[in-house]
């Protein structure tokens, strides 16, 4: 290896981008050539200065605090709020759900059993709900059933979020 080749490889070596064989050849050259050895030491010192400068903490407590608050708002707190919102909604809606849901279910059973007649479905739904029903009731019952399904899908993760947050509260982390 000559000095020109050594110069080309020094910075790659410092950056960990030189293969094992090439690194060994460079080391041999640096051991034998004092001028290249001196240049390598200067480059190594420069690397340390650059790392020190670029890794210096430039953040302020206020900036990190703002970021932290917004991150938690969008993750941990957000999940918690979702759990509370669902709890409130479910307390209001869930007691109303069983009747319409049963109506919808019976309508769906009619469909599944092969009677694809819209009038028959409507009749089945309305009959199961109320004699004075009709389309509004059928629609309401369908919506309620959708709410029920969504509720089951949503309540599991939100409950785990609330539980996790409660644990944190108990531990004094929030």
């Amino acid at each position, binding site marked *: 290896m000559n000095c020109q080749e050594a110069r080309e490889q020094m910075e790659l070596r410092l950056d960990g981008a030189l293969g094992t064989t090439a690194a060994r050849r460079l080391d041999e050259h640096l051991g034998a050539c004092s001028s290249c050895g001196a240049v390598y030491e200067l480059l190594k010192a420069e*690397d340390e200065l650059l790392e020190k400068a670029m890794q210096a*903490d430039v953040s302020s407590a206020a900036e990190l605090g703002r970021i932290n608050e917004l991150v938690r708002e969008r993750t941990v707190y957000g999940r918690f709020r979702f759990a509370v919102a669902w709890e409130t909604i479910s307390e209001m809606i869930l007691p109303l759900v069983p009747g319409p849901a049963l109506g919808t279910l019976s309508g769906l059973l009619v469909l599944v059993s092969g009677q694809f007649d819209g009038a028959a479905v409507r009749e089945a739904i309305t009959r199961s709900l109320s004699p004075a029903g009709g389309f509004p009731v059928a629609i309401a019952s369908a919506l309620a059933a959708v709410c029920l399904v969504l509720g089951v899908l949503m309540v599991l993760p939100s409950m785990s979020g609330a539980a996790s947050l409660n644990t944190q509260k108990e531990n004094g982390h*929030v």
Partner: protein
Amino acid sequence: MKIDRDTVEQFRAGDDEAFSRIFRSCAPALFGTAVQILRDRGLSEDVVQEAFVRFYRMRRQLDPDKCVGALLVRVTANLAIDALRKRKRENWESLEPDPAESIVSEAPPIDARIGTVDAINRAAAALPAIYRTVLALRYGQEMSYEEIADVLKISVPAVALRLKRAKDQLRLALVRTKVRGSDELPRS
């Protein structure tokens, strides 16, 4: 950027305190990198915030046996670069280095007399975006050429050339600052 295996596993399992620990240990360095790339502290706050939110959302896919810290750095760097590209104040592509260029620098290495932390950071902040970015990733985050190539979507040799050019410009800027400083000294 190191995050220990236990913390990653706790975070994956939904432990929000583990998430807080990761935030406390990584956020200052990630903010520093974002500031170096963007030169805009407000935008850097947004970038770091978004990076942590994305990191939180991908927690169940994290592999504790892999370097999870590097993933967080990559997410932050990509968001910062996207923000830079959107800003369009600087022409990113026209500053690509010439692949035929030698990787041996003409400028002398920075030494401790001219390379104080403040001087280096001031000079780096004045460099074009592509050079600030590669310096921030290499020295601020100690990323390998392969990792930088992956983030910047360029080849490994292109990373070496870009880094060389960035250091050349930084060295020259610091020498010029030193010369100007000497010229301004009162003459006896």
